[in-house]
Structure formats: C-alpha cells, structure tokens
C-alpha cells in the first residue's frame, strides 16, 4: 500500500476547484509551489520521525493507519452536518425569495451585522453546515456583512454549543466570555465587510447570482400557477445534492490536511512551548486552527487544558476555533475570493489574540 502518506494531501490540493477564471492562472504557480513546499515538509517530518524512532517501515504503516482513521473520523463526523446544511440551503433556494430577505433584515450595516451574529440562534448549524447555507443566502442577495457575521458567529451562538459549553464550564466567566467575544468579533468582522463590494469578496459564480438572483427557480411570472409541493421538494433536494457534492470536495481536502497535521505535528511539543500571558494564547490559537474539531465539543477538549493553560488562552481557543480552522478555511474557498478568506482568518485571529491577552492581563490567568 501507499507508504508516502502525505501524497494524497498534496495531490488533492491541486484539485481544489477554485473557480477563478483569470486568477487561476496567476495562482497556478503559487499553488504548485505551496504543494511542493507542503510535500517537502511532510516528507521531512516523516523521514525525521522514522529515523528518530528507529522503527522503519512498520512504523510508517502505523502512521498511515492513524492518518486514515483520523481523516475518516473527521469526515464521517462532518457529513451529517454538511448534509443538513445543504438541505437547508436547498430549501432556502426553493422556498425563500429575495424579497423576504429584504423585508426582514436591517439595512443599516452595523445592525445588519448584529442580526447576522444572532442568526445562529434561529439556524442551529455548526461550522460545516453553515457554509452551504451562507453561500445560498449570498446567492439570494444577502448583504456580505450579514453573511460574514453569520458565518463566524453561528458555530458558537447557537443553542447546542451554548449547552455543551455550559456543561463543561458551568455558568462561569468562560461561557459568558466565549459568547460575548464571539459575537463581538463576528459583528466587527461583518461590519468591516460591509465596506467592501460584493464582487471584491465573493467568488464570481456566487456573486453573479447575488446580483440577478438567477439561481432561484422562482423566476415564474407573477400569477403563474405554483408548482406542486412534491415537485418543489424534489427541486430543493436536487439543489441540496448539488450543494453537498460541491462543498464535500472542500471538506475532504480540509479533512486530509487536518488529519496530516494531527498525525505529523507533535502536539506535546506545541503544548510544551507555552506559558505566559501571550505565548499561551498563541499556542492555543494554533491548536484551535490545527485540530479542526467540531464546535459542539471543543469545550470538553478545552477543559483538559484548563489546568495547564491560562484562562485567556482557553477563551481565545473557544472563540477562534469555531470561526476558523483548517477544515472551514478550505470550505470558505468555495464561497469567497482568496483575499477575503485571508481577511476571514486574520481578523478573527488578531481579535481573538487581543481578547486572550487582555483577559490574561486584566482578569487574571
């Protein structure tokens, strides 16, 4: 069987369907060099590992087995939630029209971003399911700012995650800090996105629909007979299937990278780096990004770190992890332009870092 474990990662990266016409050519070189760099790094890590342990081939095979188990673990765990998101997206495509969005959502950017930040309470979706929903809403003409705030906040500001954080930490400062700062950061990023034009942020395909809302199947003349309900559901399910097959490719690439990271990076080394009010926050942010675990359970994992890590770093882990991780970053690439994805990672990262450091310095570690 395959021994060179990182190869699939590298290969599939090239396959990521970044549907940018002109930018694709420019990005080709970058993508290849990134791929080559990743492969070299992974090969180096494996090489070092094999020699350090002195175990040779069986060891490599075990590592590959571990990689496959973690990859399939994240994938199997995420599929139901991605499917649920896709079905919601399909239903929105058929049953919601733009006029409804216009009517109920605030026009003012800050209010809009706040509404987006709170929408997770109505649509309890996690970070896998939220992506197809947001993409569909964008195609329906949702303002960019509301969508960005929803995308970042929904994985935390929803009943299920609030409950799991409560059961891990109780009604303590960690729970309130997590909710408050997630909301604030999501709204801030959403508000900043309201300054951008949709065509600067969204992929051309998503943006085209954004304008003429042509992806709807609602373009019947007013007064034309409504279709039979079963036909509309079939239509919604077709949309759901298309969406799922579209997003699942990004999910698979994200899972592969996350699983390779988990297999190759020494977690204990990362954890050993870090105490101190600043370093500990950086370490936990890095861990949140690399682990790519589901927001519904990250509180339980964070609990294991409370004795060895500062409270500020725990809060920043709980705030940042659900917003951005490897898996969701790759999935963002199916909705946003690369530069916008960069902002969607960097802004929450910087803000969570500030929150964590501020917490450590002012509220105690």
């Amino acid at each position: 069987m395959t021994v060179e474990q990182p190869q699939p990662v590298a290969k599939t990266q090239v396959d990521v369907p970044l549907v940018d016409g002109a930018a694709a050519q420019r990005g080709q070189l970058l993508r290849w060099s990134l791929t080559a760099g990743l492969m070299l790094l992974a090969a180096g890590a494996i090489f070092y590992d094999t020699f350090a342990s002195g175990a040779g081939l069986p060891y490599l095979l075990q590592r590959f087995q571990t990689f496959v188990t973690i990859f399939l673990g994240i994938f199997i765990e995420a599929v139901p939630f991605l499917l649920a998101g896709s079905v919601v997206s399909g239903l929105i495509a058929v049953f919601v029209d733009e006029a409804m969005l216009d009517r109920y959502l605030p026009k003012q950017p800050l209010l809009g971003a706040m509404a987006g930040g709170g929408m997770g309470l109505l649509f309890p979706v996690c970070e896998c399911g939220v992506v197809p929903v947001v993409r569909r809403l964008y195609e329906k003409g949702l303002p960019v700012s509301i969508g960005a705030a929803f995308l970042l906040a929904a994985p935390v500001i929803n009943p299920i995650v609030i409950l799991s954080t409560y059961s891990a930490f109780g009604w303590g400062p960690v729970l309130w800090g997590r909710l408050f700062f997630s909301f604030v950061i999501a709204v801030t990023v959403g508000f900043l996105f309201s300054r951008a034009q949709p065509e600067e942020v969204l992929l051309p395909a998503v943006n085209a629909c954004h304008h003429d809302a042509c992806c709807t199947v609602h373009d019947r003349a007013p007064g034309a007979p409504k279709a039979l309900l079963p036909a509309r559901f079939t239509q919604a399910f077709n949309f759901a299937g298309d969406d799922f097959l579209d997003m699942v490719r990004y999910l698979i690439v994200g899972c592969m990278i996350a699983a390779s990271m988990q297999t190759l990076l020494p977690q204990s080394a990362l954890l050993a780096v870090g105490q101190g009010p600043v370093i500990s926050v950086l370490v936990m942010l890095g861990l949140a990004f690399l682990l790519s675990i589901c927001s519904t359970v990250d509180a339980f994992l964070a609990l294991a770190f409370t004795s060895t890590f500062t409270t500020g770093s725990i809060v920043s882990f709980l705030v940042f992890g659900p917003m951005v991780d490897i898996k969701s970053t790759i999935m963002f690439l199916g909705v946003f332009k690369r530069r916008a994805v960069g902002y969607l990672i960097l802004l929450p990262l910087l803000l969570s870092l500030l929150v964590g450091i501020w917490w450590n310095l002012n509220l105690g570690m």
Partner: protein
Amino acid sequence: MQGPRFQLALKALLLLGLALFLYTRLAGGTLFFYINERFAAYTMLAIVGLILVGVSYRPLGRKQTTLDGSPVAIDDIVDHNHDQGHGHDHALTLSGALLILLPMVLGVLVPPQPLGAAALANREVNVTMQGSALPAAVRAAADKNAVDKNVLDWLNTFAGTPDPVRTFAGQPATVVGFVFRDARFAENQFMVTRFVVSCCVADANVAGMVVRWPAAATLPADQWVTVSGVLEAGALGDQPVPVLAAQRVEPVDVPQHPYLYP
C-alpha cells in the same frame, strides 16, 4: 464528464455510494472506531438523507416536472441556470468525482482500526488529569463501584481527591485498555490506555493508568488487556502517581467500543 444524463447518474451514484459506505461502517460496527457513540444517530440520519437526496435525481429517462407542472428535458435540470450566462457550474469534473470517491476508497482499502499506540507518539499523555475534569463526571465516577470503574472513571476519581496517590492505595481495580509505554516507564511498568473521544477521533484525548507487572516487558504495544490488581502509591519516573499493581493481566480482543466517552 459531459452529457446531462451521465452527470445525473454520476451525482446520484456518488450520493448513494456514500450512503452505502456509511452503512457498511454502521453495520460492521467499525463506526465507533471513528466517532463517539452519541453521534451514531446523526450518521443514521445522514444515510437516510443521502439516499433521499440521491434518489431525488430520479432514475434516468423519467420525466421531471417544472414548477408550473409541465415536463422538462433532462438538459434543463442539469443546466438549470446556465442560460443566464454566468459561470456557476454544478457539473462534476473527473477530478472532483475522484476526490469525492477518496474517503470511500481509503475506507475500503485500508482495514479499519481504532487509534492505537502509534497515535500517542505526538499527543499529550495524561496520567493524572490534574483537577480539570468535568465536575459532573467526577461525581458520577465517585458513585461507581470500584470494580465497575474504567480508566477514565479512575482518573476522574483521582481528580476529585486532593491526594489521590495515597487515598486510594489498597483499593481493588479491574480495567481494560491497550498497552503503551515510552521512555518514562520502568522495565516492569506499562500504561493501560484508552482514548477518550467526545466527538470524533480528531479530538481524542489519552487516559491511562500506570500498571506494575513483573512481565510487563513481554506485552507488545497496542495489545489489548484486562488488568486486575490493587492500587498502590507509586511513581512514573519522578512523578508520584497512583499505580495499579497487577495480579492478573489477560490479553483480550479489541472491544466493540474501543474509545471511552466523557
């Protein structure tokens, strides 16, 4: 990858194939090598959902109706929005289809195995759980009989006590886990180890108890064992920890649920 009929069939087959793949994991019992038992219900729902969505593409040749009830050609279903002249392409490319097949191919070609000692090499190994356990779990663990406690229950019990090393000396314990050891372990020691999985294996934590057993060196890593013995105040390297002094160590098969759930 051209042809609307081919595209429809391909999409339906991929969705149904994924449903079948998940079903084989569920039916074969290996689903719990990947995720927490609590999430099995979602996997079942996903199987049903994938079948529904896959079937919604309809068997080829049957007529679909548009929203106003009139029949449409298959080309219109596939290209439902291409006339509008933008590049939103729902058609699957060859590489896209292969990528979607990848988890299924890996799942079929690589025999399923739970995480083992190899996965521990780059993880934080927890032998004490210093006061960071779930309060509810600590209480629940304290209520269990000593003989019913698993590795995680014991660690939670230790976490609920100020001086676990001495408090529990003399108590009998029987636990199941796989064998792991690293440089910190003495010749006659090994760790009886379980992974603790809250959601999926990506969040796996390690829980283990140090076991003292004269023939420890004869046990290969990853071997699943049942250990019965008595707790004593011992040490792992310089760190004082409760140690299970084994009276009996029996090799066993990999349990149906290899992971513990917090």
